[in-house]
């Protein structure tokens, strides 16, 4: 029965794809997209992943399409749901490459799935410009996969950024040396907590509370009570969206009045500021963006076209990577995949986040820590940039 069902499903999907393509003009370029529309990763992808693809494709088509030597070609986007599962994503990328024979495959979503699909992108020579991939193994991975580009900071850079910010505040006499640190008990949280722990010790901090909590914890008040009892000067949480929100609420209820409050993922979501408003002011978190008219315009247009508020971490980077792809393709002037990869290894590109340099297959400059200041999540730390927005100590809740 299982086989029969999946056969039916495959047939239905194939049919849907054919119908979808049938509507497109024969000379249109086919861009394959893979990502989670269902499953645990869907909520992140609904903000950062798919809307950027849709926005970019619309803008390119409104301009008349990608400029190739053979003339302008419009893009048809083929979106596929990997159900948050790596095996499913592998099948989809394989199918996009071998059956649909698409002209380009956009990157997958999440560290695990980008890693899992990397061999398939490599096998068919598609450039894989992965943004939603946080890993410390970037340098080794790009050696193994010559077509892989890491459009994101490594894991340890996020820990380093947070510690840099705290150190700056400590040196300025704004906070003391006691830090409470909590993390979600999965690969992401544990890796960051380990990296953070060492770096905090090196920077002369004392970690007075250091605990993990399991995924899906419904009540974080015991954690916050204990953290407060430890009397910290700064609070750091390597957290995911549901707990980022819950920790903030508990911190306010417990009146955890620290001058530096950091929570990792989702702090840079507009929903975070939308929910907490003034309370979110001067809260620190992962990501961050340098303010510019182009960026402001990007947020405005993103909302208008997709109806979704872009976030302040992955979203602009995603758009920048699409601009990079666009310029590389137009630079080559043909859908010649190895030539496009080679182009990216030789050139830099102008995007909404400034000059993008991925010549070493790893994004050279990246922001790692953001802080809410007057409703904008400014970059206050990072790697490769020379100036950042000054950090403001948080006032009491």
């Amino acid at each position, binding site marked *: 029965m299982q086989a029969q069902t999946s056969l039916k499903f495959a047939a239905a999907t194939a049919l849907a794809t054919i119908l979808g393509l049938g509507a497109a003009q024969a000379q249109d370029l086919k861009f394959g997209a893979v990502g989670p529309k269902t499953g645990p990763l869907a909520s992140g992808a609904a903000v950062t992943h798919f809307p950027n693809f849709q926005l970019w494709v619309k803008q390119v088509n409104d301009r008349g399409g990608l400029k190739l030597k053979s003339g302008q070609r419009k893009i048809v986007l083929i979106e596929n749901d990997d159900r948050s599962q790596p095996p499913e994503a592998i099948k989809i990328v394989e199918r996009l490459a071998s059956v649909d024979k698409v002209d380009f495959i956009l990157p997958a979503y999440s560290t695990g799935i980008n890693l899992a699909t990397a061999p398939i992108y490599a096998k068919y020579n598609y450039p894989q410009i992965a943004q939603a991939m946080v890993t410390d193994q970037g340098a080794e991975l790009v050696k193994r996969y010559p077509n892989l580009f890491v459009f994101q900071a490594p894991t340890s850079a996020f820990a380093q950024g947070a510690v840099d910010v705290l150190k700056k505040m400590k040196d300025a006499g704004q906070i003391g040396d006691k830090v409470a640190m909590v993390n979600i*008990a999965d690969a992401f949280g544990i890796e960051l907590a380990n990296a953070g722990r060492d770096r905090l010790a090196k920077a002369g901090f004392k970690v007075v509370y250091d605990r993990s909590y399991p995924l899906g914890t419904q009540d974080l008040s015991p954690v916050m009570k204990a953290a407060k009892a430890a009397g910290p000067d700064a609070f750091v949480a390597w957290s995911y969206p549901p707990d980022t929100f819950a920790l903030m609420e508990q911190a306010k*209820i417990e009146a955890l009045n620290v001058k530096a409050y950091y929570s990792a993922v989702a702090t840079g979501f507009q929903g975070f500021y939308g929910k907490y408003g003034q309370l979110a002011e001067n809260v620190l978190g992962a990501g961050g963006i340098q303010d510019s008219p182009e960026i402001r315009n990007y947020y405005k247009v993103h909302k208008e076209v997709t109806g979704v508020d872009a976030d302040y971490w992955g979203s602009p980077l995603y758009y920048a990577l699409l601009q990079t792809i666009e310029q590389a393709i137009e630079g080559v002037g043909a859908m010649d995949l190895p030539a496009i990869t080679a182009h990216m290894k030789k050139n830099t590109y102008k995007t909404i986040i400034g000059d993008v340099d991925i010549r070493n297959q790893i994004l050279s400059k990246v922001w790692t820590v953001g802080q809410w200041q007057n409703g904008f999540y400014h970059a206050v730390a990072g790697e490769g940039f020379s100036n950042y927005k000054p950090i403001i100590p948080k006032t009491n809740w």
Partner: protein
Amino acid sequence: MDIIIIGMLLGGTYALMAMGLQLQYGVARIMNLANGEMLIAGAFGTFWFYTASSQASPLWSLIGIVPLAFAANWIIYMVLILPLVKRAKNQGQLEVDSILATFGLSFILVGLLLAIVGGEYLTYSYLARPILIFNEPYGLNRVVAFIASAILCIGLYFWLQKTRPGLALRAVSVNPSAASLVSINVAQASAMAFAIGGAVTAAGGTILSMFLTFDASLGVIFTLKALVIVVMGGVADIRGAIVASFILGLTETAVARLIDPGLTLASAYLLFMIVLLVRPEGLFGRRSS
């Protein structure tokens, strides 16, 4: 002291998750694996109400959500579950069939929720103020949730114990075939129990949405927790689920505070295993003779 209060508050939260499933499984004998999705649907309804009404108290949304959930679950029972009940030769077969059917239903509901509200996280802030109990701050929204859950538990308990429809439900839960002999419409009573269970679950979602962040695919987490509580409490008695909720809440909080927050899940399942080993019929269950 604060361990006991936090534990009680968490227990109240768990009771809200499990009460609906308890009614559906205990009386209607349907192990509803789509329970968590119903909870999320309630939470989404409240979120929508809260944003649309420019931040009126989310509790008002109960007026609309409870009857809607009741009706929806009634229809689900009539369309999806009743044919299974009719063709089931015995209790075991019905349980297996209903688990499979509601497992499928949970995917349909997730799909519907995704189609309607999208995959984003939905969260709002309501009553996120500290309230002092014995000079210790606690979240006011959690205290309100606890009170609502207490009212719901006591109300349901008395309704089941003291009223005629409640008596009929209990009779069905004890022995469906004997109940039909004393002119109880078993199908009607089961549909009633299933619909009330669904309404209670959705109401739980409304209340929990005041302090939890939801997305469309989180339902399974709540289903699992409710399942553990219902099985631990014993299938046939609503008091079992209430007591189990509080035991779980207190244990998890004590472990989080005294040992390590990382071990809360482990402690919950350890407790679950101990209960299953020592009293397989659950805390308040009847031993099958």
